[in-house]
C-alpha cells in the first residue's frame, strides 16, 4: 500500500516540473523554434514574402550569398559596435564596482545608469536625432567648452558609425551594469571583511575578489556584446535607415526581404548570421572556458 502510494506521489512529483515547464516551453516552441524552422525552410525557396506559391530552389540562396562578397562587407560596421561594446563593458564594470561599495546616493546613481535601458528604442532614436543635429544639443554642449565648430555627427561618413555606436553604448550600459552589480553583490560580505583584516585595500579587493568572482557574468556579457555588435539593428535603422554607410548586416537582410522581396535570400542571410554568432560564441567559450568559481 505504502509503496503504491509512494509511486503515485512520485509520478506526480516527477511530472510537476514538466507541468510548470509546459507553458514556457509552449511559448518557446511557438515563438522561437517554429519561426527558426520556418526561416530554414524559406531559405531553401525563392519566396517573395507574400505569394501563395513557394518555389523550392535548394541551396541556390546560399550559393548566391557566398559568391557575393559585397553582402559581407557590412560586417565592417560591426567593428564600431564591437569597440563601443568593449568600452561599455569596462564602464559598466567600473560603475558596478564603485556602486557596490558604500557610496552616497548609490541607489540614485543605479537608477540613473539603468534608466536608458528602459526607454523605447524609437524614442531614443528621435531624442538622439535632435541631439546630433548641427547646432543641436551636442554641439551646444561642446560650445560651452570652447569647441564651437558644428559637426555633422550623422552626416559625416567618418563620424556616423561612432555616433550610432555611442548611442548603443548609452542604451545598453545599464543592462550590463545591472548584470555586473548583481554578480558583485552575490559575493558574500564576510570575504571582504576577511580581506580587510588581512590588510587588502580596495584595489586588492577588486583585483583578487570581485574580478574572479564575477568571471562567468563577464564572459556572458562578452558573448552578448559580440553577438549584439554582429546583429546591431534597431538604433541605426531608426536613426539613419542604413544610409550614409551605416548599414549593418541585419539592416541589409531586412532590406533584401522587405524592399526587394527576396525573402528566400534574406532567410539564408539570417541563417548565416545565426551560424556566425554560434561559431563566435563557441570559439570564445573555448578560448575562455567557463570554470566554476571558488573564492575560498
Amino acid at each position, binding site marked *: 500500500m505504502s509503496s503504491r502510494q509512494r509511486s503515485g506521489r512520485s509520478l506526480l512529483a516527477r511530472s510537476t516540473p514538466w507541468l510548470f515547464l509546459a507553458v514556457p*516551453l509552449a511559448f518557446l*516552441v*511557438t515563438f522561437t*523554434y*517554429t519561426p527558426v*524552422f*520556418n526561416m530554414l*525552410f524559406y531559405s531553401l525557396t525563392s519566396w*517573395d*514574402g*507574400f*505569394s*501563395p*506559391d*513557394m518555389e523550392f530552389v535548394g541551396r541556390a540562396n546560399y550559393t548566391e550569398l557566398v559568391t557575393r562578397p559585397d553582402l559581407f562587407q557590412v560586417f565592417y560596421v560591426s567593428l564600431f559596435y564591437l569597440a563601443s561594446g568593449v568600452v561599455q563593458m569596462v564602464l559598466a564594470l567600473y560603475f558596478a564596482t564603485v556602486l557596490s561599495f558604500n557610496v552616497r546616493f548609490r541607489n540614485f546613481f543605479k537608477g540613473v545608469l539603468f534608466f536608458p535601458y528602459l526607454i523605447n528604442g524609437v524614442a531614443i532614436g528621435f531624442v538622439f*536625432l*535632435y541631439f*546630433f*543635429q*548641427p547646432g*543641436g544639443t551636442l554641439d551646444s554642449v561642446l560650445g560651452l567648452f570652447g569647441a564651437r565648430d558644428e559637426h*555633422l555627427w*550623422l*552626416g*559625416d*561618413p567618418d563620424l*556616423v558609425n561612432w555616433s550610432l555606436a555611442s548611442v548603443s553604448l548609452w542604451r545598453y550600459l545599464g543592462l550590463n551594469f545591472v548584470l555586473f552589480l548583481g554578480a558583485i553583490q552575490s559575493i558574500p560580505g564576510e570575504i571582504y571583511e576577511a580581506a580587510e583584516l588581512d590588510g587588502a585595500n580596495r584595489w586588492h579587493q577588486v583585483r583578487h575578489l570581485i574580478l574572479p568572482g564575477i568571471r562567468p557574468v563577464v564572459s556572458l556579457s562578452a558573448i552578448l556584446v559580440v553577438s549584439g555588435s554582429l546583429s546591431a539593428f534597431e538604433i541605426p535603422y531608426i536613426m*539613419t*535607415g*542604413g*544610409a*550614409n*554607410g551605416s548599414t549593418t548586416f541585419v539592416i541589409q537582410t531586412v*532590406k*533584401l526581404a*522587405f*524592399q*526587394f*522581396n*527576396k525573402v528566400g535570400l534574406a532567410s539564408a542571410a539570417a541563417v548565416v548570421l545565426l551560424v556566425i554568432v554560434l561559431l563566435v560564441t563557441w570559439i570564445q567559450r573555448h578560448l575562455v572556458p567557463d570554470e566554476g568559481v571558488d573564492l575560498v
Partner: protein
Amino acid sequence: MKKRSTALAAAVVMSMAAVSACSGGGGAGGTGGAAVAPADPTKVSGDITVLTHKTDLAADGTLAGYAAEFNKIYPNVHVKFEPIVNYEGDVKIRLNSSNYGDVLMIPAAVPVPDYPKFFAPLGTPADLDQKYRFIDGGTYSGQVYGIAINGNATGMVYNKAVWQQAGISNWPTTPDEFRADLQAIKAKTQATPLYTIYHEGWPITAWQSYLGEAGCDPAANDKLAADTAPWAAGKELNGIDTLLYNVVHDQLTEKDPTTTTWDAAKSQLGTGKIGTLPLASWAISQMKAAAKTGGADPADIGFMPFPAQANGHFCSVISPDYRQAVSTHSRHKEAARAWVDWFVDKSTYAQEQALLPTLKAGALPDELKAYQDAGVQFIQLSQTKNADVSKIDNQSEIGLNKPDYRQHIVDLARGAGSGSLDGYFAELNKKWATAIKTVG
C-alpha cells in the same frame, strides 16, 4: 537525449503545420468569383470591412462621413473602416491569410501577375477604361483587379513668396535654369533653396516620378524593361539624377541631410524658410495647412513642373495612388464592389483633398486646374511592361522607388561617399543589365 529529440520532433511537426497553413491560402467560404456591381442598390446588403492607409481621415471622422453618404444610396450595407498605420508592411503580410478585409488598397509590393490570387475581378479593361483613368496598371490577363482611389500629378511644391523675392517670375524650363534660380534664392533670400529630406527616405523617391517628363514620353517606364544602360548619358534617369547631384553639389540643399525631418521641412516650406520641395501634387494641401499653422499665407504655396520641356511645353506625369480592390475571400463581393465604385464615382474625396480624380469626367481641383492652364500637359506612363520592370528592379537590388539609391547620389554629391557620379551610373547600368539577363 531522448527527451531532446522528442521536443525537436514536436517542433518540426509544429513548424510544418505552420508552413502548410501559410501556403494553404484558399478554401475559406466565399473564395473566388467576380465582384459584380449590384443592379439594385437597395437589395444589396452585408457588413464590409475596408482596410485603409488614410489613418488621419479615419481619426477625424471624414471616412465615417463618406460611409454615411454611401448609406444614402446603399442603406443595407454596413461599412467598417480598419485604419492601418504601417499599411504597406502590415497588409503585405496579412495577404498570407484569408483575412484582409472585403475592400483593401493593393499594397505596392504585390506583383501584378499575383492579383488573381488575392483579388476578385472587377470587369474588363475595355469597359472600365472608358470611365476611369489608370485602369491598365490594375489589369492582368484581360481582367481589372483594382481601381485607383485618386491620381497624383508630379511636380515640385514651392513657396511663391521666396521665389518672387529672388526675382524669379517664370518657371524654369531647363535643369540649368533651375539651378541658376536656386542660386538666386540662395544669394537673395534667407531661405534654403531646396530640401532633399534625405533622412526620412520616402520623400527622396519622388525624383523617380519625374521619369518620362523631360522627353514627354509615355513609354519611358516600359523602355526600362529592355534598356541595358538606362543611366547612359542623355537618358532620362541620367538627367534626373544629374540634376539631383548638381543641386546638392552646389550646396543648394539642407546642410545636414541626415537629420532633417518631414514635419520640420513641411512647416519650413510653409513659412518660407525653404524654397522648394520636390514632391507630387498630394503635398499641396498638406503644405497649405502647414503654412496656415505657421501663421503664413496658404496662397504662397505653388506647384511647378519638373524643369524640362519637350516641344515647347512642360509635361507632368499623372500616376495612380493606391488601387482599391475586393478581396477574393470576401463574402459580400457585391457590397464591396458597390463601395469601390461609389468611392471614385460619387464621393467628394478627390475634390476635398485637392487630388486628381480617377473618374475621367470628374472635375480637376483648383490647384491642378491652374497647373494645366499654365501650359502643363498631363501624360500617363504606359504600364504594359511594369511587371517586368519591377522584377528587374528587385533582382538588381537597385530600388528605383526606394530611397537608398538616391540617398547614395546625395552622399556622392556632398562628398560623403567614395566614388564619382559617372562611376555610380556605370555600376547601376551594370546591375540593371545583369538583372535583365537573370530575369530574362
